[in-house]
């Protein structure tokens, strides 16, 4: 039975604040992400959700506050192979880039393999397994630029899974994707969370769909407004539609 371990915090954010120049984007944010959770981090444009994600991933450093991953301060954190990431606009990469689906998914193994070491049969097997999980194994020799947007999304999830991470962050993964593909995509994420015990953090502004899929919802507007179960969020959203 899949469950969230509230005692095991994969991510801990304490009083984090961040400004671009003099413009404060995040103010005093506190958030814990538990093992096994499927958390939707939602908010409107400029709410700071992508900035918060970049702080968690070590791409930005907060001017104030602390962030730890797996109990370790992010400044000394090195076990990046425990983290999977599907970036915003992942599918708006250069369509002429000469790489097959297999080559792209293998990139997800590079952090685990380490510098100066070439890929092994184990890496290839892990990449194949990840492609199988997202139903894209048959396309492994196809050029990534030849796939549809929905198929590319699956490949990028496979790349994140190939590294055998414990948590996967997805930044606005369904922007510009049609509804039927979105539904399929969310079903896939739910399956990953339930069957693989993968902790999922989904950054999005697609509030209603996500509230039906995620277990918890964190609402951000420069600071954390709510962090509650999806059911609580939906109930509140019904009584206060402006939220």
């Amino acid at each position, binding site marked *: 039975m899949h469950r969230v371990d509230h005692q095991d915090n994969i991510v801990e954010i304490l009083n984090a604040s961040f400004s671009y120049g003099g413009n404060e984007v995040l103010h005093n944010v506190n958030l814990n992400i538990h093992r096994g959770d499927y958390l939707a981090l939602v908010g409107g444009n400029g709410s700071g959700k992508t900035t918060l994600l970049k702080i968690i991933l070590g791409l930005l450093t907060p001017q104030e506050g602390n962030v730890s991953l797996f109990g370790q301060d992010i400044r000394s954190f090195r076990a990046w192979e425990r983290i999977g990431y599907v970036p915003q606009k992942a599918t708006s990469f250069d369509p*002429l880039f000469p790489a097959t689906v297999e080559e792209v998914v293998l990139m997800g193994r590079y952090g685990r393999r380490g510098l100066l070491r070439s890929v092994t049969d184990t890496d290839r097997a892990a990449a194949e397994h990840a492609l199988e999980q997202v139903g894209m194994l048959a396309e492994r020799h196809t050029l990534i630029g030849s796939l549809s947007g929905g198929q590319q999304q699956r490949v990028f999830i496979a790349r994140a899974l190939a590294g055998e991470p414990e948590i996967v962050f997805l930044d606005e993964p369904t922007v510009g994707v049609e509804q039927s593909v979105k539904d399929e995509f969310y079903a896939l994420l739910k399956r990953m969370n339930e069957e693989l015990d993968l902790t999922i953090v989904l950054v999005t502004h697609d509030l209603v769909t996500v509230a039906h899929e995620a277990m918890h919802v964190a609402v951000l507007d420069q600071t954390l407004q709510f962090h509650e179960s999806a059911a609580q969020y939906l109930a509140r959203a019904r009584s206060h539609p402006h939220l």
Partner: protein
Amino acid sequence: MTLIELFQYAFFVRAIEAGIIVALLAPIIGIFLVLKRYSLIADTLSHVSLAGVALGFLLKINPLLTALAVTMVSALGIERLRAGRHIYGESALSLFLSGGLALATVLLSMGRGFNTELFSYLFGSLVTVTQTDVFMMAGLAAIIILVIAAFYKELVYISFSEESARVSGIPVDRINAILILLSAVTVALAIPVVGVLLISALIVIPVVTAMQLRLSFARTLLAAEVYSVASVLAGIVISASFDLSTGGTIVLVMLAAFLATTLLRGRAHDTGQKRP
């Protein structure tokens, strides 16, 4: 003069050796520069290398060595300026390109370097390559190929997505700096083959041509190697047979290969679309 007769001349054999070394090396660096949209770096470094050549004339030491030193120092400067993010990447390149050329002209005027020897550096002159040059080129090329092989998978990932590579724990800034440093060495090595003004063509065109074939990354690199070596060899032979500029002929052969590949690729694509 027949091909067999040409091979009886030591200078021609050395020209072929130097040509093959640089032809093998250029796409290995070029594929990453092109995919990272760094193509202009090759052009900038080649103009900067002219300042190095001029410095060699002035100090009366081998211009290839001074070009190597000046290009490497400039490469580090460009990368530092870009990484500092206080200036746009293209503006940093523009500063170094015009600065390099300006310094070259001043140094050349100081050392009365505007002479016929300058033309061999501007447009390439394989006949002047010595056996020592060939050994130096082979040694440096081997080092570059080994370093690229060591960081191959990281370079592929960074070229595809710098942000994702960073999240995977790959030291993106350090690997970018290594790539630019190796590009600087490649530019300096390519001077005798095509000359300062045509180096970027050698680095960019075979890769862009191979990309028309729509292959995997590994096969694109292999195809670029084939295009590069074949074009350089054909260019050397044609230029020697008809007494033409070697650098210019090589680049024109490369452009012809690009055009032919693009046309054939377009025709194959049309045929494929007409199939039921």
